């Protein structure tokens, strides 16, 4: 199982749902008990040492984290998008067997990350969400991670058809599967602020990602402030 450094942040542990709050949760904050998805916004019961860390407030009206959709990562763990709360996120939709645009899209995100000031590079999380509900199993995503040499700052997710469609609709991503099983799709990078609101979108491949990098850097700095 992959352990993401993301999961080590105690503040995130307070918003984690039961599925992904495993051994990686901070020791002083026991993972919250399983809650139905509709209660995701409720404050989890905090252990005494967690109280000073401000348990999760309700999500803002424009936060994608208010969705109760469940995803699975390439380690086979259940993940809610809300577990990304607290740091900037660079998100793109893709499919692992794509031979044309997706590797380039990933490369664009790598360039974006490289353009960040070094001290901020570890703050943002890169998230790739697959369209390919049939073929992109956790194992297929894991193979993609290896092939593209993606470190722990990358989260790879898969979901069911309805979940993928809903996220694509919220991001404005267009996609269509053809007879060969390939997808035509928008090449779109979305930057989410720490609250899960869309802060910036960058359309197109191999373009100038400096504007997106600037947004991510700004959000990363703000997220570092007490």
């Amino acid at each position: 199982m992959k352990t993401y450094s993301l999961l080590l942040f105690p503040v995130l542990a307070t918003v984690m749902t039961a599925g992904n709050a495993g051994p990686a949760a901070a020791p002083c904050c026991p993972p919250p008990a399983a809650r139905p998805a509709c209660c995701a916004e409720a404050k989890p019961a905090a252990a005494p040492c967690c109280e000073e860390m401000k348990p999760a407030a309700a999500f803002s009206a424009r936060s994608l984290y208010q969705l109760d959709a469940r995803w699975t990562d390439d380690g086979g763990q259940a993940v809610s998008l809300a577990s990304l709360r607290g740091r900037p996120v660079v998100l793109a939709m893709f499919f692992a067997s794509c031979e044309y645009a997706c590797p380039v899209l990933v490369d664009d995100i790598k360039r974006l990350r490289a353009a960040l000031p070094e001290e901020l590079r570890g703050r943002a999380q890169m998230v790739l969400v697959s369209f390919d509900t049939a073929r992109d199993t956790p194992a297929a995503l894991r193979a993609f991670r290896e092939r593209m040499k993606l470190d722990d700052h990358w989260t790879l997710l898969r979901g069911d058809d309805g979940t993928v469609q809903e996220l694509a609709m919220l991001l404005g991503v267009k996609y269509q599967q053809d007879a060969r099983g390939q997808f035509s799709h928008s090449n779109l990078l979305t930057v989410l602020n720490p609250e899960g609101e869309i802060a910036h979108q960058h359309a197109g491949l191999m373009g100038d990602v400096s504007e997106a990098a600037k947004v991510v850097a700004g959000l990363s700095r703000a997220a570092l402030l007490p």
Partner: protein
Amino acid sequence: MRATLLRLWRKAPGPLGLAVLFGLGSSGGARAGEAGPAGMAYIPAGSYAPLLRSQDEPERVPVAACWIDVRPVTNADFLAFVRTHPKWRRSQVSPLFADSGYLADWADDLEPGPRAPAGSPVVRVSWFAARAYARAAGKRLPTTAEWEHAAGAGFTQADGASEAGFNSTVLEWLIRPSPIPLPVAGQGRANFYGVHDLLSLVWEWVDDFNTAMVTGESRGDTGLERTFFCGAGSVGARDTSDFPAFMRAGFRSSVRANYAVPNLGFRCVQSP
């Protein structure tokens, strides 16, 4: 047969009942022996020729049979929905799911008012809201293929394209500005399957509208912008003379799921 018609009449009284009767009476394609859900017409399985397709894809794709609402969802229908689903009222809807134009023609949260008469199609509803309505009704939004297959029928035959005068009727609506308030739904001439207003009242949401990947304006770019879309090189247009189909593809590609647009309503389907 007569008993079936009577049953239908009772299920869908008033003008709607007439519409169903008229539809069944004029078509050989409908499932005459089955009553089906109230206010819905049966669209038999068939095929649909996508406007844009990749080179190695078949010209026509099969479409399964479905039941489709005989008219678009009205303001009265939608009012009943928001009464029981408060999160979809204008003052309470999340901006994530509907922009500021949501139900803007309505006088208030629970009062459609003079600009949105009860019998007129509800417009300025987002895709998310339309989908929520459909789910609450135990239905769903039609796919592009289902919608286009149903709308491809003429007045007197299943294939509207080969029916004299049908295409010009469709074009007529496209060039005529929509009146405000919109006319009552269900009054347009029924098509071969007994469905009203598919091409003559409002634009309608489809479940997979985001598969339409035309960028910019439809006249200038029938293909795809290569850097914006993956697979761009492989998708091309089927028939560049089918202007209304281009309009629909252009419209679908220009909206986002939270847009609440004037003249954009919806209807629902059910699988048999």
